[in-house]
């Protein structure tokens, strides 16, 4: 669901950059002490997996793309802060190496997929873990796709309202919420199912190797 460069107005990406910088600073606190030689290879491996998953994209008419994210597995294995930082790195590499997303759109993409996606996954997982762990992982991964989807759809649909010419014609993204919400959320409700299955696979892999508590 990357938003590409050029579709977001400065009224959107400038405040988003400020928010993202704050969130990155929060996430990076004490990073050096947490990233030892045991955790770093695991984090790099799952980050690379998330990177690969995000590159298989299907463009959506709502102005963004449909793809697996992989942020839920990062969040469940490494926690909110590391998942957010690692996924921001994924988005940065995808933007620079493949032109998927972009640097002006990076803060919105990182906050939506990295921050909200991993946060949603962790909250849902913790709430449901006592009921059934596998179900908790599945639902957490599904939520980690759908909630960022809602944010991306809201941000894109906001553009014609806040950035337009005096005659009302849009300067950046042209469609409102009536198009962006269904165009993004309906495909992502299904993509969330694939994400859920994949996250459960990685979760079980990690559990078998005693990465998880």
């Amino acid at each position: 669901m990357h938003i590409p460069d050029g579709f977001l107005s400065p009224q959107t990406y400038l405040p988003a950059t400020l928010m993202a910088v704050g969130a990155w600073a929060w996430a990076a606190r004490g990073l050096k002490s947490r990233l030892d030689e045991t955790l770093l290879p695991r984090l790099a491996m799952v980050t690379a997996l998330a990177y690969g998953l995000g590159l298989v994209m299907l463009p959506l008419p709502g102005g963004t793309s449909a793809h697996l994210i992989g942020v839920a597995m990062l969040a469940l294995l490494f926690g909110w802060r590391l998942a957010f930082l690692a996924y921001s790195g994924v988005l940065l590499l995808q933007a620079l190496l493949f032109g998927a997303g972009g640097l002006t759109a990076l803060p919105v993409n990182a906050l939506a997929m990295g921050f909200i996606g991993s946060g949603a996954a962790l909250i849902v997982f913790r709430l449901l873990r006592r009921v059934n762990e596998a179900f908790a992982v599945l639902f957490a991964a599904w939520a980690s796709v759908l909630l960022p989807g809602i944010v991306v759809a809201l941000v894109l649909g906001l553009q014609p309202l806040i950035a337009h010419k005096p005659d009302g014609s849009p300067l950046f993204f042209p469609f409102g919420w009536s198009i962006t919400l269904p165009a993004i959320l309906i495909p992502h409700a299904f993509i969330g199912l694939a994400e859920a299955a994949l996250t459960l696979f990685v979760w079980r892999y990690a559990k078998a190797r005693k990465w998880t508590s």
Partner: protein
Amino acid sequence: MDIMTPRQKLLLYLAVLPAPTLIHQPALLAAGFAFALLLAGKTRWRILSRSLIAILAFDLSVSLGVVLVGLWQGRIDVDWLLLANLRVLLMAYLGFWFIARCELLAALEGLPTARRLVTLTIGQIRTFERVLGDFRLAFDSRNIARPRLLDRRHHAGAQAIALLDKAMAQSTEVAQALRSRGAFD
């Protein structure tokens, strides 16, 4: 000879990138794009083709949406089509131009943790590509006829586990190499 350091190139790129979002005249964006093409030298067409491939699907889907809505409403917003497509193309072009001219790891000098993570992640990406290619070749060589769905599912499961194990082993090796060079001290 390169007159700018990787860090300076990164800063210049970050400073120039927002400019197209502040310009709302297609003619000015076209002039900016022509200028960027001119400055990029011999690599300009390769950078342009990469940029076009990167933005094609998204731009086309949004532009087609605008055309369809325009047809339905009886007025196609040609100005928006020109403005948005030029802006998106120019921004993608600037990104690929920067990457073609700048070593990303060198630009991250002074940020050791970010460099470590990027080094390991890029190493992992290469490992994934290589292992996937090997597995595909091995699977093809074992199947004369088209494999059944069940075989494909078993193969995908085995491939995924082997992929993760190999990636983990390689990543651990790199981390140990970093440790022996004092990267975690």
